[in-house]
């Protein structure tokens, strides 16, 4: 039964990931649709950040985490470097937690 559940979720996930690629790759979408599709990345990934931080399974987010998020965002904006951004966010959070904020 567990194996069946895993296989069903596996097939379903593949269908989610493949359906538009297989159905739409040979068509040129209308102008409005292609404009909308260019916004999927920033919209969904930003929503993913918010649910990772505040969703049902998220850990408690306090001042150190908020400061870490701001630091990571600023670092990403200034340096355009992903590693620098994650390191900045983690370090700010650790420092604030260590001094008991």
């Amino acid at each position, binding site marked *: 039964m567990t194996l069946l559940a895993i296989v069903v979720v596996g097939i379903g996930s593949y269908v*989610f990931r493949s359906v538009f690629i297989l159905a739409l790759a040979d068509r040129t979408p209308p102008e409005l649709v292609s404009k909308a599709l260019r916004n999927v990345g920033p919209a969904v990934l930003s929503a993913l*950040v918010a649910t990772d931080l505040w969703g049902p399974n998220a850990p408690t987010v306090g001042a150190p985490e908020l400061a870490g998020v701001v630091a990571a965002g600023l670092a*990403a904006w200034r340096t355009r470097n992903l590693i620098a951004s994650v390191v900045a966010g983690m370090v700010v959070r650790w420092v604030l937690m260590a001094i008991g904020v």
Partner: protein
Amino acid sequence: MGSVSLFVPAIPFAMVLGVAIGESSINNLLGWSSSWIIFGGASQLTLVTILAAGGAPLSAMGAALAVNSRHLMYSAALSPRFADQPRWFRWLAPYVLIDQQFALTEPLEDDADDWRRFYLTSGAVFWTFWQTTVALGILLGPLVPESWGLDFAVPLMFLGLVVVALNRWPAVVAAVGGGAAAWLFAGLPNSLGLLAGGLVGVVAGTLADRGHGGLER
């Protein structure tokens, strides 16, 4: 290489999943098989957690599928990139279309052959790392002390990816709208808040695009 640095924040997540499988009543090999059958950490964790807690298989499957339904939007967003791609690649590529893979490959403006090579390489790297680290999590248990809070690196990584890719005004509106709406709806179960946030963000960004006549920054 980009996909390696993106994978580092996913290691604690793989460990969490591995530990959840190891501690559950589910056979370890069967639990690990979800890594290559499903290949999606959040939905694997949802499925394993509900099944291990004695939940009905139907509701476990429904919840796990709901968590992965955001990949529908990735599929739609990437579909124009597959116009010049061979058939075998259209069938193979969706299998590895996880969050990191989408975030890494979507902004690239390479020509079709370069983009396909990059997609395949980074997909193979993610896939191999994921199978290995989930297995390590099952076998070795919680190696990473929880007090380090390494799972905090996951949202930071996606935040960095969003910010670095913001080069158009509508994308900024989409990101701010999507994040704010997902925060508002964060209490909804099964990633519904994530879906709602994503939809609000796409609509907001597209409206901004029309309002400004596609202003490029």
